[in-house]
């Protein structure tokens, strides 16, 4: 049984279909990149997988010990966060809240987990700093640490390198690679075909209205759509 299986999903809003017939599976330890043009519905797909939106039809199944709320999420930055007064520690700890039920304080284990994750991502020295005053790359690492507080099993990343400079982008992908090497399943939305092909084990390519390709990276690079898309990124197939 795979960790996540989507069967024949139809997605859309207000009765308008954006994507239809999406099927794919994610096994433990996979690194799946979801690529496609702007407006093809990648973010809608991601929100559906996170159960923030209900699909118009089709099924999302969880298995292999993955519960519905065990998907960590790295969203794109919102306007609200740009001037939000919060310390790094406050943000990272908030990742633990999904589990805490009605409890009103953090348990010792939660606090410990937050410190560990800040350590893992090298932001422990920034714990008392203000989130809005950090660089873009540092902010992304803070949100990554928060996602890790929610779960270690699966991470969903929505354009993790958006708005970062080339150095910070490379560093970000390297952090994600490390987490994946440590056994976290990764789902990533990306425009960056070069990075997708470099790091992913599987590719889901979404076109207008439907999925154009789903399979392993090597199959993708052999396929016509994969070759055409990879050419744009200047990658040898």
């Amino acid at each position: 049984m795979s960790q996540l299986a989507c069967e024949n999903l139809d997605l859309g809003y207000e009765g308008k279909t954006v994507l239809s017939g999406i099927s794919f599976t994610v096994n433990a330890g996979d690194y799946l990149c979801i690529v496609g043009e702007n407006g093809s519905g990648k973010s809608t797909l991601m929100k559906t997988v996170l159960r923030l939106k209900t699909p118009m039809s089709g099924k999302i199944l969880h298995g292999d010990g993955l519960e519905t709320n065990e998907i960590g999420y790295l969203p794109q930055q919102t306007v609200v966060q740009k001037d939000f007064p919060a310390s790094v520690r406050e943000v990272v700890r908030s990742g633990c809240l999904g589990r805490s039920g009605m409890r009103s304080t953090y348990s010792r284990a939660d606090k410990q987990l937050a410190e560990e994750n800040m350590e893992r991502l090298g932001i422990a020295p920034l714990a008392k700093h203000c989130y809005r005053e950090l660089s873009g790359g540092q902010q992304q690492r803070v949100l990554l640490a928060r996602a890790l507080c929610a779960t270690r099993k699966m991470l969903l990343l929505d354009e993790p390198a958006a708005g970062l400079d080339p150095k910070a982008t490379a560093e970000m992908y390297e952090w994600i690679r490390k987490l994946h090497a440590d056994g976290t399943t990764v789902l990533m939305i990306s425009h960056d075909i070069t990075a997708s092909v470099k790091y992913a084990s599987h590719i889901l390519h979404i076109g207008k209205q439907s999925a154009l390709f789903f399979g392993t990276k090597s199959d993708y690079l052999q396929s016509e759509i994969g070759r055409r898309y990879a050419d744009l990124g200047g990658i040898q197939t």
Partner: protein
Amino acid sequence: MMDIWTTLMYSLTFSTVQRALIATPLIALCSSLLGVPLVLKRFSLIGDGLSHVAFGAMAIATVLNLTNSFLLVLPVTILCAILLLRMGQNSKIKGDAAIAMISVGTLAGGYLIMNLFKSSARSSNFSADVCATLFGSNSILTLSTLDVWLCAALSVAVVMFFLLFYHKIFAITFDEDFASATGMNAKVYNLLLAIVIAVVIVLAMKLVGALLISALVIFPALSAMRVFKSFKRVVLCAVIFSVLCALLGIFISIPTGTPVGSTIVAVDIAGFFLFCILGLIKRRRVHP
């Protein structure tokens, strides 16, 4: 100077003034607590909108000759608060437009109703009535003991709510999508927040009136954000700022005879500018 002091001391012997001195800081405390998440969620104007709703409901209550207008005003305001916070998420009319729509609609409606039925209303002094609801006038000095108890009970409830759900309020303010994705029931917390906001606004209307409520909600939060950088400190600072400004406002207004509500707001504004300067100085010391 001596004169003002004696007037103040003398007025403190009145039980009405004493009651106002208990109720005002309590209301200031509640509104500033909620102000922080509201300002951060880009809902600064919800106070304004809801207070106009409360005004409209008050007008209907007056026309209906209800002895306790609270019974009508509170549920109507809560209903609109829920409507507004839900609308903000996904609808064709976006957050700010929805607030503007409900706000002016109920204001106009309330005034219209009061005007149409002014002969049947209890009060013969129509324009003074409207003025009092809009600007609070000196009604804070006419609070009954029951009002003060009600105020105290609701304040305790609001503070309890905030303490119990402090971390959750932080999470849904900072990133609602993440919170719901990782298993928090963000909708329920948003709903609770909406209800508490409505209650606080109906309470605060007695103090500063419908038009000035936003000031009590936004100025403490905005001032605290100039200087402090963690959520916890911003909340604490906003509460202290708000309570001090409210007390100072009342102490100024009693001997000078200025309207209580607008005096408090004026003190809040002065405090805001003070904090802006403090923030600038602080920044300069960190990055010279």
